[in-house]
């Protein structure tokens, strides 16, 4: 099972937000955001909630389980 996400889509929907802006908003590096987007890194619950809060969206609309 993987933790998929809509971060890339949300970044564009919320006004073309760059990975740097999101990284600054949630206090991580750009590389971390990039890895989460590419489903190469599973964020902690705290970071997942921070990202959801940044987009002002429920966490289950940002992250979802991918059953492979």
């Amino acid at each position, binding site marked *: 099972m993987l933790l998929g996400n809509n971060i890339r889509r949300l970044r564009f929907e919320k006004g073309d937000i760059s990975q740097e802006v999101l990284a600054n908003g949630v*206090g991580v*590096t*750009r*590389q*971390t955001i990039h890895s989460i987007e590419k489903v190469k890194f599973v964020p902690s619950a705290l970071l997942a909630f921070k990202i959801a809060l940044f987009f002002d969206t429920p966490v289950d609309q940002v992250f979802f389980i991918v059953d492979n």
Partner: protein
Amino acid sequence: MFRLNKKIIRVFTIATLLLGVISLLWLVYDYFLYKQLKPVILGFGELGSLEQMAEFVWLSYLFMFMVHIIAGITLLLHLRYFRVIRLINIIIILLGITSFLAVLSDWAILGDILKEYEAGWDTSGEWPILYILLGIHAVFLLLLTGIFAGVLRRLKVNDGEEMAVKKDEMVFTAAQYVGLICGIIGLVWTVFALVLSQRLPVSYYHMLATSILILIPYGLVVLYWFILKCKEKIGDWYDEKQSRDVYRSGFITLVVTIPVMLALYLVIHNDTLFTRGDYFWFPFLVFTSLTLFSVLTLIHYHET
């Protein structure tokens, strides 16, 4: 591609600047050493303590060699990124090539001076050439550090579309690259010294001093990173992905180095294979761990 290039350019520019400053300091050391050596050698006097000081000269050329190689790569990256060749770029490339060749010439001239001194011949013709070559290195290194400091500033100013992140990853990445370079150089030197020690006396103090000197660039980057991080809470030093990458790399390094170092310990302490090999094991451990840790952290960090 654009972002990747910019990141790499920053890492290489910082690494070149660091090596440039260290090489300049070594150049000052060389200049004052030659100034003291010249009258003694011309008058065929006893070298005394100067002989011990002169034994470290090769290290300055090692750093000089390293800075030329890295500066060459960085200059190519700058040209590729900025897509403009200015007069100053052409000057620095020409000066860099001249200075690089001069590193090899320096080495040859120093060898000649030593041989001629031992044979009792006059070496007054070689000294002016040696000083001219030192001058070429100095001009190149000063110009290089000046230009690269400017490039670093330009990269920051042109950050319009690429906003700088609060969590700095440049120093983190630069530290891994410098660690990798220092680790490889250290490993090459330790193997070379181990082989050399079978024919010539390589003392414990030689190994200790050279190992410390090779680790200086890494130490400086880590110190710089530590100074930056001192303002933050310990829990904020790494973000969660960096922490995971560092832990994973540290664990793999530990697991791999234990059997490798055990095997190496048995080989080095085997008197039929090596004599006087006992004090090479610890530098091997340090440089192997550093190389492995740096390369694994870089791989994990850029694993996307």
